[in-house]
């Protein structure tokens, strides 16, 4: 049995104390709170799962120059220059639209589909979001669940920034979090009503945004047991879901997950029909997965905003990903065109223990208005 508790920091005699105010006659249950220090697309790449390999940055450059109408000699001359350390030619203006040259990042459909390689195989992390076991679905090696929907893995898993084995993050992912570690507001997870961390048929999970960023400890990783102030923005108010714990693994029901983020990482994380699962680690940390259907357009925009940096340093073909998203999107079709606008996804979440200070109700009301 779980009991919802209203938790708020209230001033008591000039001091600050954690006050737990039961909404009804409460029995003692535990609340565990966390701050997320890392989240990245859940990959499960294996040897040989991308055939043929996608072009590297030089291959992308060659194709870009070709689309710009350069001759073979000009292309090779430019490539030689880049390999000698010359500035890389700008290939952003390689699209053609109604006879005009346009920015291929902003108008990805202005260049032909480069037919990016997509991940083959059936080992994938995530959740069976639609309750079906389809040919394109995965089996989750961590839970054994069949029919796992994670087409985002197929789209990103053949490109260098994301490609990673189970439990690992691609190099690009770690870098994104490093860039915003001490500047972007932290993500918080509040799990309440825990009667047993091993087996409990009903707990409540909230995911919300902090007003403060993470801070670093002496090892350069996230400082644990820091107190964060919850930011009561209305769009995160729906991030509340019930779940249960079986044999130490917490799994939630479905809900719509939304968190704003940094454009450096991803403008926002909005997952429909989302589910989460977590494990409480012995060192106090929380590790788990959130999966759901995600609008692929903001995802593409995140890639496009990196412009030539993504193609040069990340070695990924930006417009090529646009076509891959369109092809593998698997939910929520546009009523007019029939094009699926959402793609099944899964992200790892890693979090350290933290404390969450909730604004008093009056402050929440003010913000909501």
């Amino acid at each position, binding site marked *: 049995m779980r009991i919802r508790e209203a938790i708020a*920091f209230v001033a*008591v*005699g*000039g*001091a*600050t*104390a*954690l006050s737990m105010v039961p909404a009804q006659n409460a029995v003692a249950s535990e609340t565990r709170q966390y701050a997320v220090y890392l989240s990245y697309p859940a990959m499960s790449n294996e040897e040989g799962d991308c055939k043929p390999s996608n072009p590297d940055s030089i291959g992308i450059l060659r194709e870009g120059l070709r689309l710009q109408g350069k001759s073979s000699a000009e292309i090779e001359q430019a490539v030689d220059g880049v390999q000698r350390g010359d500035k890389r030619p700008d290939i952003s203006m390689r699209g053609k639209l109604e006879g005009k040259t346009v920015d291929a990042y902003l108008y990805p459909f202005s260049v032909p589909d480069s037919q990016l390689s997509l991940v083959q195989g059936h080992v994938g992390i995530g959740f069976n979001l639609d309750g079906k076991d389809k040919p394109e679905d995965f089996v989750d090696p961590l839970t054994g669940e069949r029919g796992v929907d994670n087409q985002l893995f197929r789209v990103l898993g053949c490109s260098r920034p994301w490609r990673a084995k189970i439990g690992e993050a691609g190099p690009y992912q770690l870098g994104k979090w490093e860039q915003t570690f001490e500047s972007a507001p932290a993500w918080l997870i509040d799990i309440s009503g825990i009667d047993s961390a091993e087996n409990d048929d009903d707990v409540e999970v909230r995911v919300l945004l902090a*007003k*403060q960023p993470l*801070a*670093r*400890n*002496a*090892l350069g*990783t996230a*400082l*644990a*047991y*820091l*107190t*964060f*102030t919850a930011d009561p923005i209305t769009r995160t108010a729906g991030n509340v879901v019930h779940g249960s714990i079986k044999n130490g693994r917490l799994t939630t029901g479905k809900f719509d997950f939304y968190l704003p983020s940094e454009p450096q990482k991803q403008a926002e994380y909005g997952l429909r029909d989302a589910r989460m699962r977590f494990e409480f680690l012995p060192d106090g940390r929380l590790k788990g997965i959130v999966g759901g259907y995600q609008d692929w357009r903001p995802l593409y925009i995140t890639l496009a905003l990196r412009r030539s940096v993504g193609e040069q340093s990340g070695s990924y073909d930006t417009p090529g990903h646009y076509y891959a998203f369109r092809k593998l999107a698997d939910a929520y079709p546009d009523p007019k065109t029939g094009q699926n606008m959402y793609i099944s996804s899964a992200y790892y979440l890693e979090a350290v223990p933290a*404390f969450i*200070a909730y604004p008093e109700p009056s402050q929440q009301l003010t913000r909501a208005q």
Partner: protein
Amino acid sequence: MTSGPHMMSWSRVSKRWGRAVVFASLSAVMAVAQLIGPAEAQGVGGGATVRLLTQDEYRNVIADVFGTDIKLAGRFEPDLRVNGLIAVGAGKAGVTGSALEQYDNMARAIGSEVTDERHRVLFVPCAPKSIHDPDPACAKRFLAEMGELLFRRPLMDDELAYFVDSATQTTTHTGDFYTGLGFGLAGILSSPQFLFRLEVSEEDPAHPGLRRLTAYSKAERLSFLLWNSGPDQALLAAAKSGALHTKKGLDEQVERMLASPRLENGVRAFFTDMLEFDQFDTLGKDTTLYPNYTAEVAEQAKEQTLRTIVNLLVRDRGDYRDLFTTRKSEMTARLGSLYRVPVSPRDGVIDAWTPYEFAPDSGHAGIITHASFLALHSHPGQTSPTIRGKALREVFLCQKVPDPPATVDFSRFNEATAARTKTVRERLQMHSESPVCAGCHRITDPVGLTLEKFDTVGGFRAIENGTPIDTSGEMNGVKYEDPVGLGAALHDNKSVPSCLVSRLYSYGVGRPPAAEESKWLSGELANQFAADRYRLPALLRRIATSDAFYQIVPTALSASVSSK
């Protein structure tokens, strides 16, 4: 080693006091012996001292005279701690050649910054006839004003003439009046008269046969006791007029200084010294085991205890003994991560301080349960009840716990060889098997073991290697079950306030109390402290207005020196 005008003032002092004053370990004994002369009568008091400014004193004087935006571009040598206090060690500290070079660098940088275009309008009270030529009259005016604040007395004529001449020569050489002025100021700042607190005594007309500090030395001792800085202009004026030698004049100055916000600086400085917080500069922790212990957290741990002290003793005029029982403190969210307690970030800033009261069941009560005390007196990766017990007895009870004999085999007690034991208490039990160890460990361990529920950095823990931690203990016949009980036992221990009285007086005079002083401190002054309900400002007032604090008794000098 630098040379030139700045060093000349050292040479002049050297000629006056002997070479030992300049570069060798500066012996307070030699200098004082020349200043105080023979005594004809005895009373409560002690020797005058020659004390090197501590790092904090140097910083405070510069900030008070020139403002906090003047940067100190140099490195201080570590302060010397003697008899539990840096204030006492300062009387035995010398200046090495490299330290002198650092002082000279800082002096030049300060001199240059104070006279730059941005600051000169604030400090230079006159304008030169030409900025390219010497103007001895203007230089004299500036250097006399600054010199009085920095030497804590007016400059003597030959001193002032020397610094003005230095400024004049530099202006002639560089063609810039303010460069010369800055150089003259640097000369003052690298002089022994600035770097050392040179106490001078004179015959006491009210007590024939006795000597007292001169009015300027009196002002200096008083100011550093209450404000941890040099005298301000009002105090110097009281010294100049002789008012400081009258009861009324002294009382007025003491009351003025006790009412000043700068009293907090003085109280912080004393407790920083008494609690040995300077050792945080070299304190390291095993960051793999305790990653939350960062430089910021260490600084905030110190600050938390100092804020607790200032709040209780100065702002609330509270009972000193309550420092060992109070759960009231201040906290930041970052520091809260060390204690693993929720602290709502004030204004959303994790390093902002906010009032905080430890929960009754937190185990934290009193400053001995603060991270500052617990972390400072622990090994990098594990606790040490012996070190904590020793520190508690030495710092708060003024007891001296001997160092371990050189023949002790420590391998018997470390975790690897004592693997059959689960807790530190069990390992330390082995001490009782050794008569060589048992004597001292009976004093330290029962106290330190009570703090075992706090890990190396001050975080709370209930078990060690799966075994519940037993925190019961006993001190001087008083038994208790936990740190809260230990704090209560300290609160009621008569040695605790007596120790403070002795420490504070010793801090003020810069030496261990002489024999007669010790009797007075443990008797009359300790009783007055109790009658004043253990209020620190009242104790400061008693000391600052006492005859003993300013009385120079040469025979006591030898007593204090022999107590080294």
